[in-house]
């Protein structure tokens, strides 16, 4: 291991490499911050630049862009309520309210530090425990993946415990919208009504941008506000996270680093799933769940730690088994293969320098991106001080063009606007856009894996739900939902008995 690390350090610790990684980090953060430009698109756009680099250098460069892009999404999520990447959508729930209260610097600092911690943790796990964790991941079949998605859906009502029925309904609506398009198992068109642009389904990012950012700006037409500048003349870095506040987040960082890494390992479950599951898990575990959604540090720390931890997690099956866990991992896999990397069990023995470089690149990026992202955030945060007529219009243009950029398709802009209109009505009727988005994100994983599991079991549902891991996870779902309902009644009965 030490020898492997030395090999990687020799490659990384040159002025050229450090400069390239810094540029890759800055580019990744910028790509992540811009709506409609995802981490996958960022890696794809940077791929041609890696052709002229050496094998190890090219791999380090692309991994840096990937890790930094996931972090960058949090910047616009906090400042403008636009999730730059789907993985940053939960950051909006508490990040934007914090920014509205004039605590932009604190929100950004929490987001960046949490991202760094999650990323570094998962990079270390990736380097030392790839083989062992990959063996565990191989036991996760379609039934288990369905159970994980069900776990996320089962704690949906925690997103807004004051209106459980409406939150539940919002989640169900999100699940229904996720079924629009061509069915992934049978290829049948569902709920497309002859509209060609709906065949590929409803793009998640367009809906997120519409429901969060566009809704917010349009509502401001009749309820104008001025974003509060930070207490120190709008200087982002002056309202940093204090040591005391950081210590209150230590358990969240640990839990979500582990959870994000484990979720990232699962094929098909990427940073987006990790971020949402991380957020709802912390809401469920918190002693004060009502403060989530109002602008609390925990609501930012949880998803940002989880989504960056998932980046390292996604590299585990990729490097040790050659199986990419998601779209971005697949693009990185193709880039790595082009660079002569032999992904799979022999990587550690045949090309230890490339594995070491990947690890060190992730560590470097997660440290450096905190500083670079603060710089980019400072530039973005100057924009908050602009008059809202200009700022709001700029946000809408970013939303519109970002939605277009997803698939170079004008139809996505229309979907974004429809989502925005629905978002306005949702809020007035007391429905939860967050639960809707959670349903939209988890829906495809839930349905596809359940149907595959049933297909594999030849229609035998009992066989699906009695697999050991599935049974454990489904039992956890039931316990997590039943106990909060039953426990107070048991306590009340005991008190009555005692009195």
């Amino acid at each position: 291991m030490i020898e492997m690390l030395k090999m990687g350090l020799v490659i990384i610790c040159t002025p050229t490499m450090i400069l390239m990684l810094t540029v890759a980090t800055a580019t990744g953060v910028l790509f992540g911050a811009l709506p409609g430009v995802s981490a996958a698109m960022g890696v794809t756009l940077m791929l041609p630049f890696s052709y002229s680099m050496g094998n190890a250098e090219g791999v380090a460069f692309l991994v840096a862009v990937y890790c930094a892009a996931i972090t960058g999404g949090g910047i616009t999520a906090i400042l403008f309520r636009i999730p730059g990447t789907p993985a940053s959508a939960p950051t909006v729930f508490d990040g934007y309210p914090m920014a509205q209260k004039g605590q932009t610097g604190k929100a950004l600092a929490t987001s960046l530090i949490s991202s760094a911690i999650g990323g570094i943790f998962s990079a270390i796990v990736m380097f030392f425990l790839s083989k062992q964790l990959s063996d565990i991941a191989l036991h996760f079949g379609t039934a288990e993946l369905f159970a994980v998605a069900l776990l996320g859906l089962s704690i949906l009502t925690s997103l807004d415990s004051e209106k459980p029925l409406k939150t539940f309904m919002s989640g169900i609506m999100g699940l229904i919208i996720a079924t629009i398009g061509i069915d992934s198992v049978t290829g049948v068109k569902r709920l497309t009504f002859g509209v060609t642009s709906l065949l590929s389904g409803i793009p998640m990012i367009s809906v997120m941008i519409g429901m969060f950012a566009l809704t917010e700006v349009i509502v401001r037409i009749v309820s104008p506000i001025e974003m509060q500048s930070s207490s120190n003349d709008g200087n982002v870095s002056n309202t940093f996270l204090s040591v005391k506040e950081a210590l209150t987040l230590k358990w969240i960082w640990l839990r979500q680093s582990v959870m994000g890494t484990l979720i990232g390992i699962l094929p098909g479950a990427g940073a987006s799933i990790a971020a949402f599951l991380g957020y709802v898990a912390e809401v469920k575990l918190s002693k004060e769940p009502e403060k989530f959604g109002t602008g609390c540090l925990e609501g930012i720390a949880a998803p940002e730690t989880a989504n960056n931890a998932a980046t390292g997690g996604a590299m585990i099956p990729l490097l040790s088994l050659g199986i990419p866990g998601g779209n971005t991992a697949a693009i990185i896999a193709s880039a790595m293969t082009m660079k002569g990397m032999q992904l799979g069990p022999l990587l550690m023995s045949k090309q230890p320098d490339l594995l070491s470089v990947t690890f060190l690149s992730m560590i470097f990026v997660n440290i450096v991106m905190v500083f670079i992202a603060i710089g980019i955030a400072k530039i973005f945060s100057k924009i908050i001080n602009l008059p809202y007529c200009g700022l709001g219009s700029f946000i809408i243009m970013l939303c519109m063009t970002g939605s277009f950029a997803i698939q170079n398709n004008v139809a996505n802009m229309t979907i974004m606007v429809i989502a925005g209109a629905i978002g306005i009505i949702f809020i007035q009727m007391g429905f939860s856009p967050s639960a809707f988005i959670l349903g939209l994100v988890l829906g495809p994983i839930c349905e596809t894996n359940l149907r595959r599991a049933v297909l594999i079991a030849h229609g035998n549902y009992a066989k699906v739900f009695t697999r050991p891991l599935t049974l454990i996870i489904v039992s956890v779902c039931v316990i997590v939902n039943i106990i909060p309902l039953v426990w107070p009644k048991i306590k009340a009965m005991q008190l009555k008995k005692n009195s």
Partner: protein
Amino acid sequence: MIFEFVGNTVLLLVSIFFFINLQIKTPPPTDGGMSAKTWPQILLMVLIVCIIFNLIKVYKKGKSEGKLFFEMSENEKKILSWKIWAGICLCFAYPIGLRYIGFFAASLIYLLPMIYLLGGRAKKTLISWSLGIAIVVYIVFRMILGVPLPRGTGVFREFAIWLESFI
């Protein structure tokens, strides 16, 4: 109360319509697995039941609070304001305009009334912000990221191609 009632009723009708559409258009399974319509139909059935519960809840709550059926809260009245729906209509018109008159012209025509709706009043503010935002977004998406923004048709297309020749 009417806002919630109408909203839930529309949602109920849409859910029923989706349910029937799935029933008609989706073939049954041939392989012993779940058909393509099973999962969405289960979800729609659950949603329809929840909507009915919600409607009853809204009615009971309104009755207990002594609200009139046609009564609307201040927030609900604000949401029905013509300005909001003018903003939404502008947002719908923008993608249509993009196809025919290209990014720049459509953005300028779109931004002027949008900035006005958001509170900008002076002519200088309207024009400078519209131009500035359109230029910044063009530079970021077209020049830096290489996203092929719509060029439009006719003279607008010629203008867009001339502009892109500088990249």
